[in-house]
């Protein structure tokens, strides 16, 4: 069992060592600061597009939404327009709730019963809450990083940062999202280790992205609050990358290159992993289709004719018995000549 996360942990440690040795000993700043990030972004974009196109290339032969509420029916019966959508609007709202609020995960708690003690739903609620915290903090952290690529830093980004450092802890102000990101990923990792059923179903591929994100968060936090890197140089590098005039400024600490390599690996790994659940949810046919197949025909592009047992064949086989039972028939029995 332990093997699964050990492999992933070792892989991440090796990555860190590679960046460390590559920069400190071999002086390959250009490789780690310019070439690999470009390659990673290329792989990410190409891979992402390829995977989505690949999914899209498979048709949706049948409309099979999971219906979680009352269907559209007689006018006086209240139709659940979101959980059993019949229109594009309904589907969009359902998808938004799913994508923005992780509705199905929340469902575990929604109908909690009085009969059971409250504690019964705690871990399920936690999964929903932590997943949500994780994804949103990750998003904010990503957006915050735009400040390295934009000069001047836009006002809305400054606002975002202000909100993020609302609690004014330490100097420089602690970004709440960074802490949440680290905490949430750690929770998701521990959950996989400590819950037997989670340990049983988890694969190395479930641990690897967690270790990767944890390491990215740790190196990021280290750079900001502890072993400071040469921030002006970092920004110069970032703007250089973004404007396709890459340069390697002197004096950026090795920690930055480790951080950058991990991020690069994350991007390059993304399209080939379960992380593709991000675009996947948009294409998931049980959620993104309307339950309208009884009044709007869904077309199967590869529908083909099949062999059936026709009524004529049926009557041919049972005609005598049918007539005996007084059932109407298409063809009467042949008149048998008496010998």
């Amino acid at each position, binding site marked *: 069992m332990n093997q699964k996360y050990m492999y992933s942990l070792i892989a991440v440690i090796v990555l860190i060592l590679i960046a460390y040795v590559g920069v400190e000993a071999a002086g390959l700043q250009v490789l780690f600061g310019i070439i690999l990030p470009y390659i990673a972004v290329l792989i990410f974009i190409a891979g992402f597009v390829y995977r989505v196109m690949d*999914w899209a*290339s*498979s*048709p*949706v*032969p*049948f409309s*099979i939404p*999971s*219906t*979680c509420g009352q*269907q559209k029916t*007689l006018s*006086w*019966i*209240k139709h*659940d327009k979101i*959980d059993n959508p019949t229109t594009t609007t309904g589907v969009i709202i359902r998808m938004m709730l799913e994508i923005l609020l992780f509705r*199905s*995960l929340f*469902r*575990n708690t929604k*109908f909690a019963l009085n009969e059971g003690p409250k504690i019964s739903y705690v871990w399920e609620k936690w*999964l929903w809450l932590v997943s949500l915290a994780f994804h949103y903090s990750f998003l904010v952290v990503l957006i915050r990083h735009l400040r390295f690529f934009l000069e001047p830093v836009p006002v809305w980004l400054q606002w975002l940062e202000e909100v993020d450092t609302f609690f004014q802890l330490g100097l420089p102000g602690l970004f709440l999202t960074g802490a949440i990101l680290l905490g949430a990923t750690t929770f998701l990792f521990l959950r996989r280790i400590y819950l037997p*059923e989670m340990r*049983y*179903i988890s*694969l*190395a591929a*479930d641990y690897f992205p967690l270790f990767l994100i944890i390491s990215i968060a740790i190196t990021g936090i280290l750079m900001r609050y502890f072993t400071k890197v040469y921030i002006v140089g970092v920004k110069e590098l970032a703007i250089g990358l973004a404007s396709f005039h890459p340069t390697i400024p002197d004096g950026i600490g090795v920690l930055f290159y480790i951080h950058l390599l991990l991020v690069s690996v994350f991007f390059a790994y993304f399209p*080939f*992993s*379960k992380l593709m*659940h991000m675009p*996947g*949810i948009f*294409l998931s*046919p*049980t959620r993104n289709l309307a*339950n309208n197949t*009884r*009044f*709007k025909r*869904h*077309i*199967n592009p590869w*529908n083909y004719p*099949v*062999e*059936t*047992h*026709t*009524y004529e064949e*049926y009557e041919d086989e049972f005609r005598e*018995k*049918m007539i*005996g*039972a007084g*059932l*109407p028939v298409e063809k009467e029995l042949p008149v048998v000549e008496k010998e």
Partner: protein
Amino acid sequence: MINPNSKERALELGHKPPKTDWMDTPTVYKEGIYCYAAKPARLEYVSLPNPRDWSCTAEDWQLPENWKEIILEGMKERLEKYRTFKIFMDICVRCGACADKCHFFIGTGDPKNMPVLRAELIRSVYRGEFTTAGKILGRIGGGRKLTLDVLKEWWYYLFQCTECRRCSVFCPYGIDTAEITIIGRELLNLIGLNIDWIAAPVAFCYRTGNHMGIQPHAYVDMLDFFTDEIENVTGVRCQQTFNKKGADILFITPSGDVFGDPGTYTCMGYMIVIHYLREVYGLDITWSTYASEGGNFGLFTSHEMMKRLNAKMYAEAKRLGVKWILGGECGHMWRVINQYMDTMNGPADFLEEPVNPITGTKFENAKTTKMVHITEFLSDLIIHGKLNLDPNRNDRLKNTFHDSCNPARAMGILEEPRYVIKSVCNNFYEMPRNTIREQTFCCGCGSGLNAGEDMELRLAGGMPRGNAVQYVHNKHGVNNLICMCAIDRAVLPACMGYWAPEVDVSGINELVANALILPGEKEKTVNLRDEPIWPKDVEPDEFYKRPSFPGR
């Protein structure tokens, strides 16, 4: 003195669960869990591949030489044909939200019955055989090769899934294990691996029009007999018509109700309602012996087989020249009608958009399939006051309602049955919220697992449902479980017998018919089951004196 060994011995009896990784835990075929293998004649009749006499517990499954190639080729083809399959193979993050939602996991305690693992059985092969990363990394990448052991694991666990979709409700990506099971079984069928309880109804249905293999004259005989039974109870002869050209509506329902108790009472219920509508409103509803099956075990075999069996419905409606089709109480039948029929065998442009000729209501939601659910139809009639009902006649029963998986999670017909039930009886109690509606628990026998040899599986899988029924029985004295599915009616009596022995099982139309006041009926003292209509603890005289009793 105490012998310290005594406790040691007792301890050794304790079951030691395997500590190995799931890929290393061998599949042991346990009696009571698996169903018997399909007999060759079934497959031959519908030209399915590799018909032979075989047993799933035998070492040699008599597979074709190139079975592996066939399965992998089949997977490839389905990855290209079904976006669902491809996406569900790729995007699971194994978050565990579905793990404890499966009635088979809850009941059997077998971890491979967690939906996520059931899907991983196939997903691991997908990774190991189709993805580059999986091919290179092997086990570390969560991939494995397709071997005979893997195939046997598939068979064992794909026939421990009732395709009920409860897990898909809780999945944040909407991954539907039913879809994976459907395609998994379709793959198994490519090399002749089906269970007899599915293969036989498929072959029967193909030939005689219904799963039970009932020939046309016997079908008519049976309904004629019901006519006598109904006359004994009501004094009215509810004669039916069959294969009648030019009728207004064609009625199609599962054959299980024609030939098995307690579904037979539901069948009599249909007959009474049909007769009532003919007598009072002149509505002509006919039965068909050719399309004498609403259910579709093809759904549990392959998409193609589903289409082949389903084709009869439209074909017969066209031949008879009816206006539209009315469908009876059935579970997976309505999944097929709602999600597959029009796509597969439509467009049914030879039928009319369904309108209730008695009330004038247009069934807008069935505009293109042209098939209306009987509870939609009845709800419309009842709200317009078109049925003369006396719910007191069902006072003997304290009812609860079991939402069948497919109508709930592949259609969403939740309120119509409740409205009808509440209109025809006075005592109705819901089961706890997390066991009904879209969260309903399966009967444990859907998708063709309602055989006899897998009784332990059925009872273990039906346990969460039985448990909820027992709860309302204890709390409210519920003595009748109403369901809207022929498989439910066939299997829940056994399930209730084991888990909630005081509770009977019936269909909705049985209660409707008991409450329906027929023109010219005799004074009713018994219901369709020949039981007195007054409650057990009430004297008949007292019962009739009730002011609310309109029958007097």
